């Protein structure tokens, strides 16, 4: 398993436990990460890569596998297209050239490529270390190139596994909370699907994709966006270049925030609606490996607090489009009817008995789909061919220089969750180890700056500055510092860079240039 850009122990602790157990049973894990994270202790090898150089590494893997004839010829012939253009693209990524970009040894690159390609089954798991770059989509394309080249997809023990950060980020997108997709991940541009929804909802739907969050902020900047309705999110603290985000939000004619706390974003709103939290709601979540599972209400909410769907249904009815649902099961059954290919067979009754079911599951007698893309190994059908998408390495948008000599990379810490509005509240008696933000810095850098452990220092980027305690650790390499964004008292995103992947709109949280000074 290649574990790329995932600090699994801290961000997905239970998945990390399962990986560690698999290691005891013979799984070889190769950690590819700029930091010496906990998983390194259990890993077969650690490729401590320079931040943002993943494509140079993967292209070198691809080249080694092609040159040494370790690729799956039959698979490529049957199921892929554009192999020739991949060969051409990776030609210049010799192990030595990749070594000069990534900071790794050519030998480690070659050995890892051989191991991935020659193991009976190889898997890639990744997280935001891959996606939170200006080239995040290209990073993912290159991971897919690697899996396709070796046929490591569509069988148990193979595949590509993005580990999801929120309990229902998979479900929210699947339900249609995306600008280009209807429920069941159906394209809004597809006439057949759109007609299906138009008939059920009795409206005419707009066939053109809407705005991503990134585009929303762009249109806010140029005055085209007037109203924003935010549910359970704190973009002011979570998004890059915080001072800029705040200025943009002030331009809105109407900001509605629906949340469980008066977050930093809610404080800017014109109207704030109190919503039920986890523990007070019924329904389902979809986890990182496509399992649908039942979420149950444990306690009654405050008398004036309402579930998200209740609020939206009541508002909808007032605005002239009546929505009358008496419970979450009724809503789910509408989802099952409209997106039956995915969820038709997943009833509340079955979930009660079976605990979890993997979609797609079209009918009540369908067992659910544990492994996706099995058609790749089914001899009868070929289906649509998968293209290789060759990509090129591009360095991070803001590299360190004399004025800002450090690279800041950001991420999460074990005991805290995102903007910390929930994890501020631990049960009594629990001793939390990290109670405030730190800037994690290598002992050599601390020494040359004359900084001691726990000393408050100033961190400054071209966009903002803050004071924070230094934590001296060899988890980072010289020249690299790390911070999370959990504490509003230390809003790390005043520092981060508003450069985005042009396709996904994801910001480059993982790399910007900062200066650190002793106060």
């Amino acid at each position, binding site marked *: 398993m290649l574990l790329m850009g995932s600090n699994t122990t801290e961000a997905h602790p239970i998945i990390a436990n399962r990986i560690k157990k698999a290691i005891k049973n013979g799984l070889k894990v190769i950690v590819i990460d700029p930091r010496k994270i906990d998983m390194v202790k259990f890993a077969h090898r650690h490729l401590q890569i320079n931040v943002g150089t993943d494509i140079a590494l993967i292209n070198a893997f691809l080249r080694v596998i092609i040159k040494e004839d370790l690729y799956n010829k039959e698979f490529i012939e049957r199921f892929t297209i554009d192999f020739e253009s991949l060969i051409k693209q990776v030609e210049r990524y010799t192990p030595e050239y990749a070594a000069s970009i990534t900071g790794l040894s050519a030998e480690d690159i070659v050995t890892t490529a051989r191991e991935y390609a020659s193991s009976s089954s190889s898997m890639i798991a990744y997280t935001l270390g891959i996606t939170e770059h200006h080239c995040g989509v290209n990073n993912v394309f290159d991971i897919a190139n690697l899996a396709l080249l070796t046929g490591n997809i569509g069988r148990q023990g193979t595949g590509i596994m993005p580990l999801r950060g929120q309990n229902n980020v998979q479900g929210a997108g699947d339900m249609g909370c995306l*600008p280009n997709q209807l429920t069941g991940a159906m394209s809004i541009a597809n006439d057949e699907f759109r007609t299906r929804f138009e008939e059920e909802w009795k409206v005419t739907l707009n066939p053109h994709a809407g705005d991503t969050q990134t585009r929303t902020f762009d249109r806010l900047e140029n005055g085209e966006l007037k109203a924003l309705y935010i549910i359970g999110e704190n973009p002011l603290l979570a998004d890059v270049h915080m001072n800029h985000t705040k200025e943009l939000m002030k331009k809105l004619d109407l900001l509605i925030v629906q949340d469980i706390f008066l977050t930093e974003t809610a404080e800017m709103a014109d109207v704030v609606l109190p919503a039920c939290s986890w523990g007070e709601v019924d329904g389902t979540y979809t986890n990182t490996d496509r399992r649908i599972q039942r979420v149950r209400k444990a306690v009654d909410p405050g008398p004036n607090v309402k579930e998200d769907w209740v609020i939206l249904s009541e508002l909808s009815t007032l605005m002239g489009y009546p929505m009358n649902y008496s419970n979450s099961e009724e809503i789910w059954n509408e989802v099952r009817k409209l997106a039956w290919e995915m969820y038709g067979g997943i009833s509340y009754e079955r979930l009660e008995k079976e605990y979890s079911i993997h979609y797609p599951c079209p009918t009540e007698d369908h067992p659910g789909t544990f492994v996706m893309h099995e058609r790749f190994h089914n001899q009868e059908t070929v289906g649509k061919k998968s293209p290789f998408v060759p990509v090129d390495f591009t360095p991070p948008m803001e590299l360190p220089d004399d004025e800002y000599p450090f690279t800041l990379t950001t991420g999460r810490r074990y005991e805290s969750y995102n903007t910390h509005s929930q994890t501020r509240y631990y049960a009594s008696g629990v001793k939390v180890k990290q109670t405030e933000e730190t800037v994690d810095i290598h002992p050599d850098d601390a020494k040359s700056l004359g900084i001691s452990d726990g000393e408050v220092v100033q961190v400054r980027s071209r966009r903002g500055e803050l004071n924070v305690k230094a934590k001296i650790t060899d988890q980072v390499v010289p020249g690299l510092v790390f911070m999370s964004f959990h504490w509003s008292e230390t809003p790390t995103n005043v520092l981060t860079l508003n450069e985005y992947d042009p396709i996904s709109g994801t910001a480059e949280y993982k790399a910007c240039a900062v200066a650190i000074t002793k106060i």
Partner: protein
Amino acid sequence: MGEANLVKTICGYCGTGCGLVLEVKDNRIIKIRGDKEAPVNKGQTCVKGAFAYEYVHSNKRLFHPLIRKAGQLVETTWDEAYQFIADKLSSIRDTWGQSSISMFACARTTNESNYITQKFMRTVIGSNNIDGCNRT
């Protein structure tokens, strides 16, 4: 004082999807353990899943709708909040068009609430300007 009830549910933090058993007494969660029957975690939990639940009962939760009056957020009724939103959204939509309104959905809430969120946006507002935090 009532007896403790046990409620099975799924953790609300990361995307792993661990099954939990909540011990509930007098409308409060008093303890959480991993569900041994859960296929994902088989009884295990991490520190967040097992202990970081007191936010549900925090007195800093929002308990009433709030509306901005004379620059300040003040308590209001649901009726007033709904009417204000309905009037304002309708007038913005009618003046500036459907694409002048955007919605950020929530990756923490249920599938059911997310389905209704996008249905609201696509039917009532008539816009596909809906996205989540899946890019951050």
